């Protein structure tokens, strides 16, 4: 496969044709913030956290789905991008009820980490305070829609890695929400194998292990990497 040479933040980087700008940046040790990206599953550009600037184009592009091209000039960290990223996190925080102090994932949450990284200390948007469901009908796991950011990682990991496709996204726009099977209680789902991959994939405290109390829910992504590497490369490491 052909090698492409591009510049990221002024640095010359080479990548394989077909790789994404995010992959190329990660390999070169350049950090681009992400939320809906999860190693080992497909990308869909849902969260817009990874937006980058390209050459002279006024249009921003999501690095996780943008394929590398010869001579591409990518900027990952301009004032404009930092401003937008901050705004995205504030919008996510105001959309549902992210009360970190009583969340099972407090201290181990990717959304919280992102807010810290970007210096978000409050949201300039009005909080919506929607009334959201908490489903603890599954024997081992629970889902708290108050903490869901609709990143779709649970949907993709369950479909692409476990193969059960228990989760999907229902509704549209601001009214979207994740569902198990026919929007039925998770505990009644006939497709769920209780493998726990969605628990590990979820970036926030939305999907959790039952029994975890405030701050106790630490996700272990190495479990997913282990399975994905075994599946794809037939190598069992970790």
């Amino acid at each position: 496969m052909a090698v492409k040479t591009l510049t990221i933040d002024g640095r010359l980087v080479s990548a394989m044709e077909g790789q994404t700008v995010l992959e190329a940046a990660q390999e070169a040790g350049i950090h681009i913030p992400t939320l809906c990206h999860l190693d080992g599953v497909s990308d869909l550009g849902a969260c817009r956290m990874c937006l980058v600037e390209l050459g002279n184009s006024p249009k921003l592009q999501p690095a996780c789905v943008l394929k590398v091209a010869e001579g591409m000039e990518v900027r990952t960290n301009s004032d404009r991008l930092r401003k937008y990223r901050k705004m995205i996190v504030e919008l996510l925080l105001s959309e549902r009820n992210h009360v970190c102090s009583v969340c099972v994932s407090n201290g181990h949450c990717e959304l919280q980490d992102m807010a810290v990284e970007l210096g978000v200390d409050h949201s300039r948007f009005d909080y919506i305070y929607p009334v959201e469901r908490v489903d603890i009908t599954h024997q081992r796991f629970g889902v708290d829609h108050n903490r869901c950011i609709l990143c779709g990682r649970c949907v993709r990991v369950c479909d692409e890695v476990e193969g059960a496709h228990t989760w999907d996204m229902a509704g549209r726009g601001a009214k979207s929400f994740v569902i198990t099977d026919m929007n039925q209680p998770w505990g009644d789902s006939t497709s769920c194998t209780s493998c726990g991959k969605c628990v590990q994939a979820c970036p926030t405290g939305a999907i959790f292990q039952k029994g975890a109390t405030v701050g106790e829910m630490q996700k272990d992504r190495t479990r997913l990497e282990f399975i994905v590497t075994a599946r794809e490369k037939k190598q069992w490491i970790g």
Partner: protein
Amino acid sequence: MSFSAIDSALPSSVMGGDSRYKLLETAIKRHQSQSDALIEVLHAAQEIFGYLDTDLLVHISKNLKLPLSKVYGVATFYHFFSVSPRGAHTCVICMGTACYTKGARKLSAAAEKISGLKVGETASDGSLSLMTARCIGACGIAPAIVMDGKVVGGQSEEMVTEQLKGWIEDGF
């Protein structure tokens, strides 16, 4: 909502020879049970049944060999599909850009006022559903609404109120 039917391949109404399921069968066969025909099949089901209940969606996902959640997700994404029963009368107010700028908000407020419903709701006696849609392709006659499936344009608050009042006073 009951989920008892989820394990059984066919809802009991199929066993009973419900002719609507036969019609649906024909639609599914026409698409050779191809999973990428989901939208077409949902379309047919919506027309035949008027709304898509859980049993029906389970039946469709089994026939097209699709995940349950995917079928439910698609059925709730498109405005055309409804997963709960619609009222005997339906009033759909277009909230597309053209209609919006021509006062669709006022129309929906008027409809809510006379019916006592909020948009998206169906009266508890099943007599009337109030809904909104994205552009319904009638921008030329904006603001447009759909009354019982019929597109009418150039609407005013008075006209909407009048029409709904007619339905309400008719005792539906």
